[in-house]
Structure formats: C-alpha cells, structure tokens
C-alpha cells in the first residue's frame, strides 16, 4: 500500500500559516487550505485505486467533493490550529464513509471500505461490516483512550504517516508508533475476535 502521500502541494508549515491568515480574515487562504486537503485526499484515493479490483467502489472526486462540502463550513467553526483542522478532516471522512456504506447497504450492494489503511492493519476493509464496525470501535476507543483513537482516525481516514500524525498531534514519532501497536491490537481484537 502506498504511503507516499506525505508530500502534498502545500507543506505543513504553510498550512499553519494559511490557518493564521485565514483567521485574520483572508478568504483566499481558506481556499488554499481546502485545496490542500482536497489534493491530499485525491492522492490517497488515487493510491488506493491503483491495482484495485475492477469493481472498486471508490469515486475519488465524489468522496473528495463531499469532504469539501463539509469543510467549507469549517470557517465558521473557528479553526485554531492544525490539529483541529486535520482532526476535523479525519472525522468528516469517517462520516462520509459511513454514509456511503449505508447507502450501498440499502441498495443491497456490497460494501467496501474505501480508503487506504495503514500497513499495520491491512486486513481492515476486507469485510463488509468493517466500515461500520470500525466506526463503532473507534467511538468506544475514544472513551477508553482518546489519544489512540485520534491517531487511528488520522492514519486510517486521512492516511497520515506516523511522522505527520506526530506533527499534527504534537507527539513524538516514537509515541505514535507505540500507541499504534496497542491500538491496532485492540482494533484487531474488536473486529476480528474469532480467528
């Protein structure tokens, strides 16, 4: 699975600056921010689509379009820092997936998890129920250990690398790696109990 999505058209330092500019009232900064997020997701989506089965269900532009929809309102929510922003993106992505999966379930078509997941949990998405189970599991994890839940969210739904995740959440990479180990084990126990 490709993890080369760390380099987007806008470097992370610029994102912070854009955020500041934006909160100063510069609309074009906001647009650029969103463009950046858009690009990121598009790259991720494209990465997932490479070499996939012919009946893949991911419609990259539609997915991204939806995220933009949700993000477009972000201005009003008063973004304060990068972490908030990215976490919002990840959260939005999560809901988009649930939405898509639910729609497909209603149409009695097979549900497939649509985003690339980290190398550490490649099995995620094999089962139809994974989209929903993952969402529920993450909600539970949030109650137990919110930091791990956030890490998983960023890595799974936004495809952030360990380094990026560390940067977003102001943690060290080592902490992120460590947390990931336990979080993935926990997730595996939740979603694949019987094997």
């Amino acid at each position: 699975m490709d993890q080369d999505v760390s380099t987007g058209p806008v470097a992370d330092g610029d994102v912070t600056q854009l955020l500041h500019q934006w909160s100063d009232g510069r609309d074009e900064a906001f647009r650029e921010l969103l463009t950046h997020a858009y690009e990121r997701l598009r790259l991720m989506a494209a990465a997932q689509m490479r070499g996939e089965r012919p009946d893949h269900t991911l419609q990259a532009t539609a997915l991204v379009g939806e995220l933009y929809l949700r993000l477009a309102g972000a201005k009003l929510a008063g973004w304060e820092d990068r972490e908030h922003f990215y976490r919002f993106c990840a959260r939005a992505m999560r809901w988009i997936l649930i939405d898509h999966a639910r729609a497909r379930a209603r149409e009695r078509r097979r549900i497939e998890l649509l985003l690339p997941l980290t190398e550490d949990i490649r099995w995620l998405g094999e089962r139809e129920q994974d989209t929903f189970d993952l969402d529920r599991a993450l909600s539970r994890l949030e109650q137990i250990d919110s930091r791990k839940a956030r890490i998983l969210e960023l890595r799974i739904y936004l495809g952030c690398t360990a380094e990026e995740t560390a940067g977003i959440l102001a943690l060290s990479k080592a902490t992120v790696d460590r947390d990931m180990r336990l979080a993935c084990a926990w997730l595996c126990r939740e979603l694949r109990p019987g094997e």
Partner: protein
Amino acid sequence: MEPLWWRVEELFHSALEQPESERETWLAAQTGADPEAREEVRSLLTADRRNSELSAQAPAARQAAVAELPAPSRRFGAWETGELLGRGGMGEVYLAQRADGHHSQRAALKVMTRNLPTPDGIERFRREREILAQLEHPNVARLLDGGVSDSGEPYLVMEYVDGLRLDQYCDRHRLSLGARLRLFLTLCGAVAGAHRNLILHRDIKPNNVLVTGDGTLKLVDFGTARRMDASSLETMAPLTPSFASPEQLRGEAVTTVSDVYALGMTLYQLLSGTLPFAGGKSAYETVQRVVEGAAVAPSMAPGVNPARRRELRGDLDNIVLKAIAPDPARRYASAESLAEDIERYLSRLPVHARAGKWGYRAERFVARHRLAVALSILLALTVLAAAVGLTVQSRQARLEAERSRRLADFLTHVMGLGYDRESGPVRSDGASARMIDVIRYAADRLPVEMVGQPELEAHLRANIGRVFEELGDTAAAEVNLRRGLALVDARRNPALAAELTDYLGRKSELEGDYESAARQYKEALRLLDAARGTVPAEVESVLVLNAWNEAWPPSEGDALLDRGTRRAREVGETSPIYAQVPFDRGLLHWHRGHPEEALPEFRKALAILDAIHPRPLEECELRQVWGQLELGRGNLQAAEPLMAESLPCLERALLPGEAHLMWAQLAHLILLVKQGHFKEAAGPLDALVAEVPRRRPKDRAMLASAIRWRDKALCQGTGACGK
C-alpha cells in the same frame, strides 16, 4: 472490576519487550493479584500477533470475494425475522412476520447488531422508538412494536413499505407535472405532521420516501430524527450531503427550515430529474456551487425537455428556489407554507377554468311560457310531415323539402335552437329540467320527423347535442352528436361536420377528458378551414372560441383567439357570443400571471351579459369561474361573494353532475377549508369524493382535487395527522 487501561498499556508494552518464550510467565508474575489485567493483556497480545498475521496475509486475502451470508431466522418478541433488507447506521433491518402466523402482516424489524451496542447507540435507539411511537400519520411508516430481545438487543418493528422511491415511481409511471406536484404535497403533509409533533426528520430525500403500488406515499427512516427541544443537538450526524442544508453541513442548529430545504431539494429532483448543483466539471466545482448557493433554476437544469421547461419557468422555479435558499431566513418558514404555494400554483392550472363557452347557449333556453308553444309546433310538424309525405323522389320533393326545412327552422328558431338573434333571447332560470324533457322528446322524434332529410337531422342533432351537454347530460349529447356525424358527408358539408366535431370536443372537455377534447377541436378546426368562405360569422366565431383554451401554445392560441374575436365582432359587440371574447382574454391574462389585467376583461364580459334579460346562465358561470380564480390565488375576500352569488343559480339551472355545477360545489368546499372551517367541509367533501367517479368518471382532475382537499379537511379538522 475493569482493569485500569494505563496499567494494561504499560503491561502490554513491557510484555512485548520480553522474549516471546518468557512472556507468559512474566505476565503472570506481574499480574498475580490481578487476573482481569492478565486476561486483558493476554488477549491484546494475542490480538497483536493476529494483527501481524492478518496483515501479512492481507494482500492475497483481499482478492477473495466476500460472500453475503443469509441471515437465519430469529425471534424478537412476537416477531420472526426473514430476509435481510439492509444495514442501517444503528443496526440491521429485516423483513419480519408475526411468529404466531395468525396475521400475515409484513413488517420491517430494525435491530441493534450483535456487537455490543454502545451506550450512545442504545440511547439513540430508545429515542427513535419514542419519537416514532408518537407519530401517527397516513403518510408516515408506523411503528408497530418494539422491545428488547432475549439476547438483550433492542429492536423496533415498523410498517413495511413495499414501494418504489419517489423519483423512481414518478418516472416509472410517467407522471405529469401536476401529478408529481400532488404527490409531493402529500409528502409536505407528512413532514408538517412530524413538525407539529416537534419532530425533525433531518434526512428527507427521495430514498426515504416510498410510494406503494396503489399510489400511497410513505415517509420512512426517522433514524436521524431528533426532537426539536432536545438539549444537546448532535452537530455532525451522518446525513446525505446532496440533500442536507448548508446549516446542517456546517454543524449549526437544525430546525424545521432545514427539513424544508431537504423538501425543496427533493422537489427539485422530482421536477427536473437532477439536483441543483449538478453539472460542474468536477466535484470540486460542484461543491463550490453548493457552498456559494449558486443553484440553477429547475427550468434551466440540464436535461429538461423544452415542454417541461415551459411549465417550470416562472412560478415553479421561484417556489423551488425559495425552498432551497442558502439562508434559512429566506426559505419558506414551514412545510405548510411551501405546500400552500404549490397548491396555489396547481389551482391556477386551467382545469376548472375551461368554462364559460356559452356563445352557443346564449339563445338556447326557452321561457317557461314558450314550452307549450314549442310542443305544439312539434306536434304540428308531425302532422304536417305525415300529411306531406316527404320523399325525395316525389316531383314536389324540392318544394316539400323546402317547406319541411322551413318548418324545421321555425321549430329550431322557436325553441331557441338556432343562432338567429331575431328569435329574441328569452330564457328562464328554472326551466332546465323541463327543457331537458323537451329536448329529449325532440331528439326522440327526430328520426321520424326528419326521415329523408339527413342534413337537417344532422343540423338539429348538433343543436340538440349542444343543449344536452350544457345541461349536463353528456351521454345523450354524445349519442346525438355522433348520430349527426354519421349523417353528414364531411367533404360536401364540412361546416356542419366541423360544428358537430367541435361540440364533441366540448363534450369531452365537460367530462374532464382534455386529451380527447384537444384532438376533437383540432379536427373541427381542420374541417372549418376546409369550408372556408361558407361559414357564417355566428357559427365560426362560436366554434373557434369553443376550441380555444388557455392551454394552447401561445402562437396558435393567440391566432385562434384573434380569429374568434374578428368573427364575433361581425356578429355584434353586444351579442352574448361576443362576451366570450373579453372573458377568454381575461383567462389568458390570469393564466400568464397578470390577474390585475384580467379583472377589467371579466367586467367587460359581465357588462355584455348583464344587458340581457333575464339574466343568462352564462353570467352565473362567469362569476363562478372568476370566483374560483380568486380562490386559487388566495384572495378569499374577493372569491367568496362571487362564488356565493353564482352557486344557487347554477344549482337551479343545471343537472347534478354537470361540469360547472360540480366544480362550483367543490370550489365552495375548498373555500370553506381555506377559511379554516374544516369540520364543516369534511363531510361534504367526503361525499363529493364518492360522487365524482359516479357522475364524472373521466374527470380525473376533479377527483384528484376532491381527494386532496378532503384529506386536508379531515386531517386538520380532526387532528388525525398527528397526536
């Protein structure tokens, strides 16, 4: 007791640092006094190993297809599940039946999945049950049952709606614009009902609106519904972006107008087949449009055919755009006000306003004291005919034919069956019942009296047919008109054929069969053109004005109206035939959205008719139609006196079931409903709904209208839309 997570975490990582062979003993040593912790860490370590294994296998494993396992039948309270219908956000939905097999009622059973439900999930489930239990509306899927299964899973049993999605249903049945709007009104009613119970649906879209085979609309899936007075409003609930309002997407407070927005989007799709922000070159562009609120008007949406575009332009465009205004304050304040505007639009459609085609009838009614004269003449004619022994072979044939023609003319003249104004317009208000007897008698005698005179008979049949249809006996009208057509050679006498065909069109129109009417009128006009030069002004003007209605495309319609006006003017501007002209112009103004320009025309028409004594029935009809137009626009103040004045004289003069009369009766009841007198109107409306199919089987428009208003009256009068 739950082991502390932090402890577990510490142990987990430390355990991993141990060599694998020693891990278990190390763990046992560390958690001697804490078996739960040991178990927890052990299971996590196992999972960790499994995670690696699965991840290693994954690329290959991903290729394998995931089979859809059939769900075994399960028992929930009194219900037994069958086929899986779908998976929702909160759980699965199965088809279900009562386990005891007594009732074969099918239901949809929604259950929390076997995975441990979160406290949040259970709470939402319980809330949905509470919400649904309170909502009883004919167009909302009902909650039948609910509870907790033996295995501890909460479940809901709801009415199973076997139907198509709203947009699919409309397309499958090729519903017209009016029919789609009327269905949509039902949806507005359901949403309004929910709002009255302080419930927001929050996810209205065609997917959640199903229509069954018999045309019943049901709003389903209140899964995202929330009570309006909830203290904590979930801001990021899952919803469908295309139909969600901007404020919902932004996570702001959601109110009834958010549901209105969704209704507007649904309507948009129903009318134009697409969504307002479609057509962007990329999703990015599309999304930008949503955010900027740059909706394309429904009539201008891509893929809308020209005929539909014409229908949508103007009022409907405005209604839809208002419903989906980005700023909540600029939308309709409620589902009801949206529905009202649509109803207003529907009643402006030229259905009941195809009235007032009375150029013919102005001279037709016979005064009470004239009846005796007419009957005696008929008798005389009979005697005469016998005496003269009419045959075409006789040497005197031409003279005798001439005489009998004159007699026929005289009869026609006296009975008021001709166009000749010199007979003196004498009419009565209360004589129609007897008039019908006379006419029936005359119709019966015609074959005898007019033997050997097919054209005469045809001519008389045309007149008689016309009288029948205006009185309300369209069946007799048809018999006579068709018999007349059978007697006429259209090539030799196109004018007469035109007349008969034109009146057939009028008959269809009065029955409510507008498609046939349009066809017949076109044919009549064709025949009229074939007879050019030989048709007198009184005949042509009446035929042309008969054929005209507001539904003609402007270029043809205007030409027709001009032609009718010209010839009617030749008859005379004080003639009742001519009164048709300003009336038609008024209707045209009204239809085009300029009622203020219609009123002076109506008054002109009334002035002409007022000058005729006694008051002609046409005057009543004009007032009634005018009143109905005002009713349609919501000017109840103006509508009431117009309608009240005219209803009694219509009731006196016309047979029950006659078009103008029934429309007037319906309109009167609609007025009551609009004034808020629901209980008073409900019973009569119900009776009308039963009567319409009996008396006017082809009039679908009237039936649909009556049903709609009856339902409205019942719903609002008894509060049966929601508790």
